[in-house]
């Protein structure tokens, strides 16, 4: 109810007719001064400087940065799988205190359960939610179909290719109808062709469900192709150095020269951030 009000300004398109899904769409996300310091035997390591971020309901935001800039850590914190050293995460105005089915995290390795077949993997979250068997089966079928894996319901994980595994992971996440999808380089291990196809599929799923997506990547073109906004992170300790709004029509084409221009600009910002990092060592000035 609250999020209905805050939605007003967001570029929320009308839901496609014929889309009979009961999905409520995305919810807004607010990150207030979230930081992370890992303390180990070697002393404290600052992984993430306090980050401020506001993400509208139904927005597609890409977090871009080199490895080890704390963007995955931030995603884990939003998912509630890790706790922040300071600051709070607010999902739909409520403080995040642990994992919840309104926010689902997708990993680079699809993290499917090898002892379950595709159908049962997709049913997993529904079962935890105590849904009756009939509904589970039907819902899982629907999402397996959505990710174009009809006919593979009885396959086991090791029989699937990397791209198919990610599709199953997406179906498994969507099945419990989360409002926010947190994607941690989900296509990082895939070949370029498969990745492009999954971009298109993700874009169309997002367009029809209007979930909020936070997508972590170190691939500039991927970020530009998918995001409404791209937030560029500096290397460790991570902080946001610049923000780009990508106003390009969808579905986007990787060959679009505007997209290539955006990518080039972001790339240079990213390079600068990495260079200053090298010069300054650990005492980087924020922003």
């Amino acid at each position, binding site marked *: 109810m609250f999020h209905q009000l805050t939605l007003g300004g967001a570029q929320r398109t009308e839901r496609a007719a014929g889309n009979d899904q009961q999905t409520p769409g995305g919810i807004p996300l607010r990150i207030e001064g979230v930081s992370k310091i890992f303390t180990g035997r070697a002393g404290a390591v600052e992984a993430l400087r306090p980050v401020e971020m506001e993400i509208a309901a139904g927005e597609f935001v890409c977090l871009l940065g080199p490895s080890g800039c704390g963007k995955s850590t931030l995603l884990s914190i939003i998912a509630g799988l890790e706790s922040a050293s300071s600051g709070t995460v607010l999902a739909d105005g409520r403080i995040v205190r642990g994992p919840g089915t309104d926010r689902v995290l997708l990993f680079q390795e699809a993290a499917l*359960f*090898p*002892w379950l077949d595709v159908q049962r993997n997709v049913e*997993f979250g529904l079962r935890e*939610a105590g849904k009756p068997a009939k509904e589970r089966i039907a819902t899982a079928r629907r999402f397996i179909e959505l990710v174009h894996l009809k006919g593979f319901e009885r396959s086991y994980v090791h029989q699937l290719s990397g791209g198919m595994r990610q599709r199953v992971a997406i179906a498994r996440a969507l099945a419990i109808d989360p409002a926010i999808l947190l994607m941690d380089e989900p296509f990082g291990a895939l070949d370029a062709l498969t990745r492009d196809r999954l971009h298109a599929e993700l874009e169309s799923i997002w367009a029809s469900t209007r979930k909020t997506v936070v997508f972590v990547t170190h691939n500039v073109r991927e970020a530009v192709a998918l995001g409404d906004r791209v937030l560029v992170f500096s290397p460790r300790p991570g902080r946001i150095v610049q923000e780009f709004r990508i106003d390009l029509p969808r579905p986007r084409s990787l060959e679009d020269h505007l997209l290539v221009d955006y990518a080039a600009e972001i790339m240079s910002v990213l390079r600068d951030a990495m260079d200053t990092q090298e010069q300054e060592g650990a005492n980087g000035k924020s922003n």
Partner: protein
Amino acid sequence: MAKAISVSTTRQRVNRSILTTWIRRLVFYALLLTVWQVVANSGIWPDYLFPGPLAVLNSLVNGFQNGQFLQASLVSLQRLAIGYGISLVIGIVLGILIGRFRTFEDTVGSLILGLQALPSVCWLPLAILWLGLTDQAIIFVVIMGALFSITLGVDAGVKNTPPIYLKAARNLGAHGMALSARVVLPAAMPAILNGLKQGWTFAWRSLMAGELLFFTLSLGNLLQTGRDLNDASQVMAVMVVIIVIGVAIDSLLFAPIERRVRERWGLQV
């Protein structure tokens, strides 16, 4: 066409290699039995100490005909099943606790590592003191034989569960008991299975050792009565029965489960 031919020739080749394996095996055992019979006939040792295979076969047939062997096997198998079943339940619970909670690992875990160094037969005197010469005493020894291997197997499996499965499961709403039963246990299955197999061999050994001391009919007891009667052929016949039961449990119970797990997890090409 060419493909069909090559497939059929490889199948023939596979069939032939299986056939040669069996022929080799058959020849080996035939030779072994022959040598055994020849040595037995040579009269180096008296018949009642070193009977030939034919005498052992005779004892075997007799033993089954008068019902003794079958009944003894059933008694032993029942004790094994009860003891192993109890170890299974306790071992899985202990293994999960030790694998997931540091406090349990530092305390109970170290105790179990220590106790595992103690051959389970060493529990027998204590078991008899506490429980008398009863079934419970034997079952107690069987439990002590199997429990620690199972616990440590489950513990190892739980510890080596890839953390990403746990993260994914928690993220999809699993927690508490459901997390253990539906994610931790199945994820640990390959390692657990190793513990279960080792536990079973220890249970079987402990059972036989325990039964040697008892007066009621059982496989171990038949070995002992064979000795008392100076009847080496009965002793050997019972040994054959024990081997056959052991091999049968291995190949009919554990091998198929292991194969299924390996196939599912994609560990076998």
